[in-house]
Structure formats: structure tokens, C-alpha cells
């Protein structure tokens, strides 16, 4: 394995981590707001609050890790994406900032208003939508290199069906991932009404998620034939992903092994996410930037890898502790303990 591939794999893994953790977070916020809207707030709010409280800050770090890491391993991305993404990334950051801080303000500061719950819930859909634009741009066709510098063609971008399919996928995936996870979590908390409601949401969003995902592959055939043919070479990975998807839906449908169901879902997204990533290889930005010409020098790459391994040695035990104390602690999950400062 070359350093280039090692670097991008590590980053892609962290981005995958972000996709899962953030989806749970975004979706939870949305379901919370939606249940308030439908007058079913009493069923969901406790379960959602209890999960989100100790972990919200951790979610954000996955994203920071990804963009700091990519500038480290592939400094040219700072030039290419930095120039292009000024507007979309700024909007995403502002949304993330409002969301993160108002979460803290309401949870720890007792600022409770319906308005904020709604805004918080909706921001959870806008953020994945705005972040997913980056994936669309990476497919190429929206950026032109002029003498004055790089330019993003907003008109083409926002009239492209690919853009909107990816936006829709990001939203359906968020809701699906989140609903499956929360079903499991509510079930662990022995909270029957919440489990039932969330199970219903999970089943509702399963189909749209898989349909939009398939739709994007079809869109790519016209938009980026080179990428499409590479995707087709990996058809078997997408096949595995689909089987895992079917397994999740079956288990949820039969009300059995919710934990395993979430495990299968993680597997489904993991396989699909990496299949997409592998087929995107070697491009970081079609057709300007590949992982080879964007790569940092060898000394820095080795230093980063060492730092990464050392950091992981520190993080994994801590993450395990966090999960053991909250996610897998019966008393905490069932609301018998609070112990908040």
C-alpha cells in the first residue's frame, strides 16, 4: 500500500465515522422537532436527549479531523477546494455553529423554546444537504480554471439533477440511519412506545434511502462516465451492501435483534461508502487533482501516520470508556442516573 492510499483511506474512514455519528445526531434533532410538531413529543424527547447529551461535541471533531487531515495529507486540496468552496463551506459552518451552540444553550442553559427546537431540527437537514454539495463538486464539471484562478459555476451546479439527487440522498440517509440507531437505543432503554414509533420511522425511510442511492449511480452514467464505469466494476460491493440493507429491514420488520440491525446498517453504509470512494480513485477533484499530484512530501506523510497511530492509541480507549459509561450503561440509558453537573 502506498502512503497516498493509506492517507486517503484513513481520512475516508474518519469521514465515514462522521457520516454515521452525525446522521444519528442530525436525524435525532429532526425527529425530536417533528414529534413536537405532531404532539408526540413526550414519547421521544427523553430518549433523544439522553443519547445526545454526552456525545454531541465528539461528533463535530470527526469533521474537523477530516478537513484538517486532508490538508495535511493532500495540501493541494487547500488550494483547489479552499478556493471553490468559500460560499458552500461557509454556509455549512454557520449552520453547524448555530446548531452546536444552541444545542449547548438549550441543554445546559435551560433556554427552551419551541422555535429553537424547530430550527434545530431543520438545521439537521440543511447541514447534510450543504455538505453533500462537496461530493457533487468532486465529480467534476462545475469548476473551471481561469487565469484569475478557479471558479465554481453555481448555475450549472444548482441546475444539475446530480446535485439534487445527492442532496436528497443525504437527507434520506440521515433519517434512515438515525431512525434505526434510535430504535435500538430506545429498545435498550425498555421504552416501548418510543421503540415502536422509531421503528415505524426506520421502515418508512428505508425505501427512499435505497432508491435515491441507486438513482445517483444512474445519474453518474451521464455526468461522469469514467466514474460510472469504475463503479460498475465494483458491482459486487454494492451487491453486498444491498444484502446488508435487506437484512436490516428484515430484522426491524420482525422486531428482532435491533442491535444487530444497526450493525448491518453500519456495514451496508461502510461497504457502499468505500465502494464509492474506491471508484473515485485516483481523483480528489475530477479532472484537476488526483491523490498522487496532490500528495504531501514523504517526511510529512510519515510524521502524520505516526501521529495518527499514536493518537488512535489514545482515542480508542477513551471512546470505549465513553460508550461504556453512557451508550452501554443500563442505568444511564434507562434514565435511572443523571449525574449531570
Amino acid at each position, binding site marked *: 500500500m502506498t502512503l497516498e492510499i493509506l492517507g486517503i483511506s484513513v481520512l475516508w474512514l474518519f469521514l465515514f465515522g462522521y457520516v454515521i455519528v452525525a446522521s444519528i445526531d442530525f436525524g435525532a434533532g429532526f425527529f425530536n422537532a417533528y414529534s413536537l410538531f405532531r404532539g408526540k413529543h413526550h414519547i421521544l424527547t427523553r430518549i433523544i436527549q439522553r443519547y445526545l*447529551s*454526552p*456525545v454531541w*461535541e*465528539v461528533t*463535530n*471533531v470527526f*469533521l*474537523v*479531523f477530516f478537513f*484538517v*487531515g486532508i*490538508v*495535511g*495529507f493532500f*495540501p*493541494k*486540496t*487547500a*488550494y483547489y477546494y*479552499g*478556493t471553490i468552496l*468559500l*460560499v458552500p*463551506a*461557509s*454556509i455549512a*459552518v*454557520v449552520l*453547524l*455553529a448555530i446548531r*452546536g*451552540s*444552541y*444545542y*449547548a*444553550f438549550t441543554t*445546559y*442553559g*435551560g*433556554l427552551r423554546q419551541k422555535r429553537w427546537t424547530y430550527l434545530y431540527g431543520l438545521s439537521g437537514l440543511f447541514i447534510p444537504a450543504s455538505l453533500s454539495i462537496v461530493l457533487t463538486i468532486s465529480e467534476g464539471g462545475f469548476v473551471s480554471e481561469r487565469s*484569475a*484562478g478557479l471558479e465554481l459555476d453555481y448555475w450549472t451546479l444548482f441546475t444539475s439533477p446530480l446535485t439534487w439527487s445527492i442532496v436528497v440522498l443525504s437527507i434520506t440517509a440521515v433519517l434512515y440511519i438515525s431512525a434505526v440507531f434510535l430504535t435500538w437505543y430506545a429498545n435498550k432503554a425498555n421504552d416501548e412506545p418510543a421503540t415502536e414509533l422509531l421503528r415505524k420511522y426506520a421502515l418508512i425511510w428505508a425505501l427512499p434511502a435505497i432508491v435515491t442511492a441507486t438513482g445517483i449511480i444512474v445519474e453518474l452514467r451521464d455526468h461522469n462516465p469514467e466514474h460510472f464505469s469504475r463503479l460498475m466494476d465494483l458491482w459486487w460491493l454494492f451487491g453486498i451492501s444491498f444484502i446488508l440493507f435487506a437484512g436490516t429491514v428484515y430484522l426491524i420488520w420482525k422486531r428482532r435483534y435491533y442491535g444487530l440491525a444497526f450493525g448491518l446498517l453500519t456495514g451496508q453504509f461502510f461497504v457502499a461508502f468505500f465502494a464509492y470512494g474506491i471508484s473515485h480513485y485516483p481523483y480528489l477533484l475530477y479532472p484537476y487533482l488526483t491523490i498522487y499530484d496532490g500528495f*504531501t*512530501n514523504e*517526511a*510529512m506523510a510519515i*510524521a502524520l501516520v505516526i*501521529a495518527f497511530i499514536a*493518537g488512535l492509541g*489514545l*482515542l480508542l480507549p*477513551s471512546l470505549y*470508556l*465513553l460508550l461504556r*459509561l*453512557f451508550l452501554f450503561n443500563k442505568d444511564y440509558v434507562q434514565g435511572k442516573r443523571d*449525574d*449531570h*453537573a
Partner: protein
Amino acid sequence: MGNEESVFFSRVLTELTLSFHIIYATIGVGIPLMIMIAQWVGIKKQDEHYILLARRWTRGFVITVAVGVVTGTAIGLQLSLLWPNFMELAGNVIALPLFMETFAFFFEAIFLGIYLYTWDRFENQKKHLLLLIPVAIGASFSAIFITMVNAFMNAPQGFDIVNGQLVNINPVLAMFTPAMPTKVAHVLSTAYMTSAFVLASIGAYRLLKGSNHIYHKKALMLTMKIGLIFSIATAVIGDFSGKYLAEYQPEKLAAAEWHFETEEGAPLMLYGVLDDGEVKYAIKIPYALSILAHSNPNAEVIGLDQFPEDEIPPLYIHYLFDLMVTIGMWMTALSLIYVLGTWFKMRFVAAKWFRWLIVLGGPLSIIAIEAGWWFAEVGRQPWILRGIMRTEDAATSSGQVDLMLLLFAGLYLVLAIGSIIVLTRMFRKNPVEQELADRELEKEGELR
């Protein structure tokens, strides 16, 4: 929008983000240490008040951390969005500490979550205190790693440029630049100092506003002591910083001190104004600049005459420098008088006017932090990477920076108002007297 405008707005936006972020970042680095000390004292002395102090500080801390996290994310991305050319170069040489900072922050975030939600979970309070150590370490190391990047911008090393290509890159050498030791030490000690004085300011304010509870007096004494220790440390480090500047960035020192001609036995200019290139109304301390720069009253200090016109930082940094140093000195004196006055049971330290001075110390310390960073950043101009890349060559070519400036200005306004409202409400709704009474009741309930 021409490129000049892009550069201008990129600078304004970066300045705005950093000026806002640094308030929350400084508090975020310093407060965990304060909480740790309070909780430790509480356990040692078996004093419920100190434990409650730690607990209440923690609640407030979470709010400031939240704003610090989101604005930190903003500046992290803005570096690439506004200064893509700089980050492309920096990514090659100084990415290591940036990368390690995310780990430090990750570590801090995880343990903060745990610490926050395990207040009464352990029989043994010490176990709970142990969980805070990674939070404090993570917070301080975040500051260390980020300051390393800033030090690199001031004294870049660890690479060579041959025919426009970066060669011989040594990431470790780039981390440990000559600017690093003094800069890191200065950032850390001022963060602790500022946090202590901000907390002292809150305690003094409560005492002035009617509450005469011993809890606030204990808080005040503790924070003023910590503040005193770190302000003395800051002064010592400041002296070393002067020597560093004289050796490696003489133009920054010379501009800050309005030292125009290279000379031996240079005097130090305090305050004053610049009128047509002439210094007026300044206090001139003979030989002091030579002592600051080289520990020798007769040493030669390089003046601005040694530098081409277009490599000299703006001269107004003198005011920023003076503001920072004056507040630092003032706070050292104030905390010293307070601590001594309390020891010798002098009555004036409990007087209203003196407590108002302590209240004022909180905002003043924040102003000193701002002035210090403006001085550090403006004093490096026209360079973004001293001697290698000019700020104007680093900025984005995008034409929408002005719009983004408005967007982020709005965001910071919302965050500032939100955090202030939440913090004041949080403590006003649940004053310490009531919380102490509640805890008393709870205990009785448990005994029965």
C-alpha cells in the same frame, strides 16, 4: 471584486473570527485548570464550597466550550477558504501540529462529556477529579499545538526552497521554531491568568450585588492567588519574548517600541503618540530597551532603519503592545495588593471601590488578550509567513469574501448574545445560596 479587495476582506474576516474565537478559546484553555484546582482543594479540605465552586464553573464552562468549538471549527475551515495559497504551503510543512491539535481536542471533548455526566456517580470524589485531568491536558495541548503553527508563521524553518520547490522538509524542526518556547509559554500562562481574573471578577461582582456569602469570598481569594502566580509567570516570559524578538524578529520589536535608529544603550518608549514620524509625550526609560532585548544596558538594538520600507509592520502596534503590557502590570499589582491585603487583614480589600476594580479586571484581561493577539498578528505584516510569503499573495481569488464577512459577523453576534443571555440566566436562576440549601436538604433526605 479585484484581488486587493479579496485580500482586504479576507484579512478583516480572519481578524474578526480570531478576535471572537480567542475570547472563548482563552477561557476554554484556562478554566479546566481552575476547576481542577477548586475541586482538588475541596477534596483536600473536605470543604463543600470548593466542590460546588468547581461544579458551578463547570456548568458555565460548557457554554463557553460550545462557542469555542464552533468558532474553532470556523477558523479551521476559514484558513483553507480564505488563505488557500498559504495553506497549500503550510500543509506541506506545518500540518503535523494542526493534525495533532485535533487529537488533543478529541481527547478533551470525550472526557469533558464523561466528566460532565458523572458528577455523583463515584463514591470516591478523587476518581471523578481524575476524569478532569485529560480535559485540562487536552485543552492546554490544543493551545500548544496551535501556537506552534503561529510560531512557525513568525519564524519559519524546517524546509528549504530551491527553484520555487519545497525541499528538505522536516516536520519536527518546523514545530520547534525559535519562536515556539516563548510563544507557547506566553499563550498558556496568559490563558490561566485571564481565566482566573475573569472568575475573580464574577465573584467580586456577586459580593457587590448583595450576596455576602463566604462561598464567594473563598472563590475570590482562590482565583486572585492563581491570577497572581500566573501574572508573575507572564511577566518573566514577557522578558524572554523580548529577547526572542530582538534576535529573530527585530523589525517587530523595533516597530512596537518605535525604535527607528539602530543604537547602543537604547531607551524604552512607553506610551506617547506618533506625530509625523516624531514621538511625542512618551516616557523614555534610558537603557531599558537594551536590557529587555539583550539583558545588557549597552547592547545594540536593531532599529527600523535596517529594513526596507515595505517590510516594516504598521507602527500603531506600539499602542497595542503598551495596552497589553499596562493591563498585565496593573493586574499583577492588583492581585498582589489583594492577596497581601487579605493576609494582613487590611480592610480596604473588602471595600466597594476595591471590589469594583477586581470586577473591572475581568474585561480588562480579555482586552489585554485581544491587544496581544492583534499585536502578534499585525506585527508580522506584511508577511503571512515571515520572509517567505506575503499576506497579499496568500489570499483567495474568490469574489464573495465580503458577503461571507457579513454572514459570519451575523453569526458571531448571535453567538455572543446567546452565550451571554444563557450564562447570566443560568446563574441568576440558581444562586449559590439556594443550591447550598438544596444540597443540605438532599443530604438530610438521604440520612433519613
